[in-house]
């Protein structure tokens, strides 16, 4: 019984529904010849032959991921730096807030045609698209985080003569970290969307391009396998983010637990 409680029951909770769903899908494909619905075993074979043993991994997936990583990294660094500069100054903050609100509300994909015109089609444009779409949640959350810092904390660090870089490093950044991480989480999904769309729009390589290519040539199992690749990238990204967030905000979650217990 105890083995059941400790090992089997959690594993069952993890896999029961996915197995049921895949089973239902498999049974459905057994007596249906729908053109749009591939059968599970064939899809796995297509997946392996298309994405793992084929050249697509190095030719399409890796360049896409590189652009995604570069765009996200740039957006995070720029967003936090600008956010700190703007957040620490009341006047600049009031001056820039409405303009930034506009850019945050602007659906990021409309930037693709603009940047295509201004930069031209290519790697730089795709990274620029990701940066220009992802920076707003991070920037605005950093500003908000810096603004929301407990004044007692600021006055304490001032009394102790903590100023300049060490104040940013040891007081402001940690205090603003929870909203900053929330901003990064929002920009993750935006980055993925923009990576795919910018490739659908204007390239001849990359994941987005390949998937649309499959769809246009009615290579349905290949198209589904491409959708699966995007799903895997999305899930992996969110796991990496959860891991990083738990490390960065360990003190914060601990604090919340203590507060909730009280």
């Amino acid at each position, binding site marked *: 019984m105890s083995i059941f409680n400790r090992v089997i029951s959690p594993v069952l909770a993890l896999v029961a*529904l996915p197995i049921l769903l895949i089973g239902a899908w498999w049974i459905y494909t057994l007596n249906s010849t729908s053109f749009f619905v591939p059968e599970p075993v064939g899809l796995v074979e297509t997946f392996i032959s298309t994405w793992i043993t084929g050249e697509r991994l190095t030719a399409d997936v890796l360049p896409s991921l590189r652009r995604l990583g570069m765009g996200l990294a740039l957006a995070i660094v720029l967003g936090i730096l600008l956010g700190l500069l703007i957040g620490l100054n*009341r006047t600049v903050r009031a001056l820039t807030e409405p303009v930034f609100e*506009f850019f945050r509300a*602007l659906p990021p994909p409309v930037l693709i045609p603009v940047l295509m015109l201004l930069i031209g089609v290519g790697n730089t444009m795709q990274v620029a698209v990701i940066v220009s779409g992802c920076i707003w949640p991070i920037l605005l959350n950093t500003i908000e985080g810096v603004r929301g810092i407990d004044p007692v904390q600021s006055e304490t660090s001032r009394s102790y003569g903590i100023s300049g870089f060490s104040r940013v490093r040891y007081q402001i950044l940690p205090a603003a970290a929870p909203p900053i991480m929330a901003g990064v989480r929002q920009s993750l999904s935006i980055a993925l969307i923009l990576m795919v769309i910018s490739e659908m729009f204007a390239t001849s390589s990359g994941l987005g391009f390949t*998937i649309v290519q499959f769809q246009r040539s009615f290579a349905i199992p290949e198209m589904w396998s491409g959708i699966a690749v995007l799903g895997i990238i999305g899930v992996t990204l969110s796991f990496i983010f959860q891991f990083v967030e738990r490390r960065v905000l360990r003190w914060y979650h601990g604090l919340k637990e203590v507060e909730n217990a009280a």
Partner: protein
Amino acid sequence: MATPKRGKPRRTGDPPWMAPALGAAGIMGFLLLWEMVPRVGMVDGRYLPPASEVILAAIENLGGGDFWQAVTDTMQAWAIGLGIAAVSATVLGLVIGMSPFLKRYTHSTIEFLRPIPSVALIPLAVLLFGIGMESALLLIIYACFWQVLIQVLYGVGDVDSVAMQTAQSYGFSYVQRIRDVVVPTVLPYFMTGIRLGAAVALILAITAGLVIGSPGLGSSIARAQQGGAITNMYALILATGILGVLINLAARAVEKRVLSWHTSVRGELAA
């Protein structure tokens, strides 16, 4: 850091019109910069027309039926998609959230399906629905559904167990428990989900137009770009941004209205 005045470290003495005035100045400054950059020749005026021309084109658009047709199409997809997603996610969220068994057994599936980017479904949408509004709806519903579902699940998880047990001892039925105990706790979470979902729905409504060509502002932008009507393209983008701002403002206003009794909103007003 701004130089603090003695005794008034937070400079609470700014007149109330100060922040809006600075904000307006910021917008003017941004437009001026936009006007200057192409005029001075830093960027080719063919690719980035000056602000004044774009704004004129945008105002001209307001008089045309095509523009309003596009806005209507976009907003229709937005509203229907958000509505379907909100209703289905709320019902499922309440049912799953209130049953520990369902919650445990659906967790892995939800966590796996949620991060899949909805744009991955674009090829599927094209195959199934072509360039109709249904393609846009598929993307919008998929993206918004998770936003609302996750928030509702958080909300149900936050329900006070003592309140729940009290209701049970008093013989509240399942429906009564949902109405009187669960809904008041879930509502703030639900509103957050709707606010996030409203923004995401607009992004996908526009994206579907841009990439697939389903009717709306997105496809107007794509047509303007392909046809070389660059000034009009910028005018449409400007309109899209304003639409986004309006949706954000409306969502916040609704949230404030619906939750006027809730401490998170009451506290904000008192402060």
